[in-house]
């Protein structure tokens, strides 16, 4: 009933008649409702005028109750408000920060009559000093060649059309370089429009949420004001690759991506180790069929680019109607790829154990399984730790390739940020995130290798150390 009333409030004859038609429970199809209602009206004039009076009463009470709701009132406007949105100006998120330049887009459709002038009233405290306004009038998908001049008066933008905008046309106003009040809050865009009937109020736009300055943004603003930062950024290279403001905001913004990278590689690696060990054992097995299987698996994966494997998995599986989460797919492809490399590392490790160990084991009466589990594999593990760690580093770095298929990892965040800022600094921050893991690991590999050298060759390490000492003394 209420919906019916709103329709009639637009003042359009058609909907009025249609509603009266439905009052009489007419079952005529919609397209003919108008005509049939019209004829009925002329026949039963008295009856229908009574209806109209009734309707009007209902309308008035409806208007009274619904006047608070924006939507219900909208029907009465010759120029409706479709939307008002703002472009995010937050580097570490997708919110809109007050006191910082953003772009407001307002859209409205001319329902009937002709619109000569449009005034948008922006929230009190908005800054329009450096704002530029672009007005587009569209008829369907086609641009109309209508000249519009926009002028700013305080927090108002007044747009005058050289030729009035006809019904059914869409008006889009883009105000770039404007600032919302710095305190944040929820705002609406109000305004007025002028038709031949005079000037009327626009419906309020949907609410726009503006966030007050975040601590990160405050730090960025502080950096903006520092003279040394300005001097630093005036250097083309430093400003492009190491802009202090962007380092601050990108560290915050890239962090979730970094966690995704770590999660993928940390989950994938144990799986890769198990798979790799399995294929390594297959490759050294005596059964030629099993050996062939392992060789095909390992060579196919090692012989093709990781990038290609990602594409095949990400676009291939969904084609087979297997729809998995992208992060899960990322985990799978990293695990499979690493397993091939790891199985080669394990195979080399196993084969590097001297034949004497096998002979010794068999002399103790161990079978092949026992020999492998208790003698060979434990020794292998020690030997493969350094190459295993190196491969872990590679896998960790390779997660960056997943950005190309939409996994929201470190590189993806860096890429997005670079796109929106036009600055390379996010990539440098991403490099820091990668190094935060890889550098300590590289150090670990070095230490383990040194220790192993010491334990396997006994005194060699000590001799080497004393040699370097002696050399450095002589050098001085």
């Amino acid at each position, binding site marked *: 009933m209420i919906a019916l009333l709103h329709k009639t409030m637009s003042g359009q004859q058609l909907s009025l008649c249609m509603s009266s038609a439905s009052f009489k429970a007419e079952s005529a199809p919609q397209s003919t409702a108008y005509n049939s209602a019209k004829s009925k009206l002329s026949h039963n004039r008295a009856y229908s005028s009574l209806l109209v009076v009734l309707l009007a009463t209902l309308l008035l009470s409806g208007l009274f109750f619904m006047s608070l709701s924006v939507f219900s009132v909208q029907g009465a406007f010759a120029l409706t408000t479709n*939307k008002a*949105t*703002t*472009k*995010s100006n937050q580097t570490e998120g*997708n919110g809109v920060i007050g006191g910082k330049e953003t*772009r407001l*887009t307002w859209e409205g459709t001319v329902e009937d009559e002709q619109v000569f002038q449009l005034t948008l009233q922006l929230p009190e405290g908005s800054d329009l000093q450096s704002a*530029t306004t*672009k007005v*587009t*009038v*569209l008829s*369907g*998908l*086609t*641009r109309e060649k209508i000249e519009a001049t926009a002028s700013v008066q305080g927090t108002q933008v007044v747009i005058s059309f050289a030729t009035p905008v006809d019904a059914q046309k*869409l008006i*889009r106003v*883009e105000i*770039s*370089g404007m600032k919302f009040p710095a305190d944040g809050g929820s705002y609406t865009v109000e305004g007025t429009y002028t038709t031949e009937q005079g000037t009327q109020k626009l419906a309020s736009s949907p609410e726009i949420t503006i966030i007050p300055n975040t601590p990160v943004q405050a730090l960025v603003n502080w950096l903006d004001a520092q003279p040394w930062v300005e001097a630093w950024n005036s250097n083309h290279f430093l400003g492009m690759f190491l802009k202090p403001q962007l380092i601050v905001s990108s560290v915050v913004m890239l962090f979730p991506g970094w966690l995704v990278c770590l999660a993928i590689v940390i989950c994938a690696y144990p799986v890769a180790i198990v798979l790799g060990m399995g294929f390594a054992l297959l490759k050294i097995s005596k059964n030629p069929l099993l050996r062939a299987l392992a060789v095909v698996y390992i060579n196919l994966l090692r012989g093709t680019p990781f990038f290609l494997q990602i594409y095949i998995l*990400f*676009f291939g599986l*969904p*084609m087979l109607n297997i*729809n998995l989460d*992208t992060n899960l797919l990322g985990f799978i492809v990293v695990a499979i790829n690493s397993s091939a490399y790891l199985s080669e590392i394990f195979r080399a490790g196993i084969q590097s154990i001297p034949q004497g160990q096998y002979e010794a084991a068999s002399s103790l009466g161990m079978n092949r399984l026992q020999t492998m589990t208790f003698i060979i594999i434990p020794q292998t593990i020690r030997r493969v730790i350094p190459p295993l760690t190196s491969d872990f580093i590679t896998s960790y770095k390779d997660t960056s390739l997943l950005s*190309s*298929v*939409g996994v*929201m990892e470190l590189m*993806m965040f860096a*890429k*997005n940020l*670079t*796109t929106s800022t*036009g600055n390379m600094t996010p990539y440098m921050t991403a490099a820091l995130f990668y190094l935060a893991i890889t550098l300590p690991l590289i150090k670990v590999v070095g230490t383990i290798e040194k220790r192993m050298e010491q334990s396997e060759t006994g005194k060699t390490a000590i001799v080497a150390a004393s040699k370097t000492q002696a*050399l450095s003394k*002589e*050098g001085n």
Partner: protein
Amino acid sequence: MKSSLVTTVKKNALKGVAAVFMACALVGLMACSSSKQENAQQGTTSSSDSSYTLVTKGHLTVVAELGFQPFEYFEGNSTTPVGFDVDLITEIAKRLNLEVTYLPNQKFDTLVPTIKQGGKADVAIAGITITDERSQEVDFTTSYLDSNQSLVVKSGSTETEQTLNDASKKVVVQTGTSGEDWAKENLPKATIVSVDDVAAAMAGVQTGLYDAMVIDLPVASNLISTSYSDLTIAKEIPTGEQYGIVVSKDNPALTEAINKVLADMEKDGTMTALKTKWFGSNI
């Protein structure tokens, strides 16, 4: 004694090597900068109109993202790009007595920075919408085509602008495009995934990896009618954006020269003919 001699010699040798490296690097740098200057000078003096500079003499060097059918793309196995933009820039170059040279395919989001940085290409033409943000970095010629955005979904999908604005939905866009801007602003709750090429994005929508794609309407219509028949346009988004050719701010004379040619082409009907050839009608 002997060993210490060896170390000093070694040290000196190292120093020497380092010095040679430094020298090489310096010479290299100088050579680079001087050759750049030469190029620029050559360009200035040799072009038909001496007021603008060109990267290579007698050539209009164009950079584009070449996966944007029907604006610039590769047909079949051909390695020369074709499309509306290609025809347009070729005609412009012809009227400026220049030859068109296309640089290898480059990601869309790198086009504006490439022109801004200079030295690689003279113009970028790749369905680039004229926006205030981009206009701060580079110059645009007058617009040569009006465009809109579209919401592409799988055929039979019931997704709408409203249902897509949800945290569980993934909307794919091409990195750095106005479609990306639109999606971020109008579907703030959805996860917006930016990818480098349109084909990957379309394939992703096809396979259900993403729920929808936001892309320029002419490209969506063309691709759906030629190769992605199982996709459909859920919504035509009237944005009325306009494409322009990107020229460096340091090269205003080139912008002016192209603007003049564009006006001529509009007047003599060449533009209408080109639009009819590629879009079937004068859009």
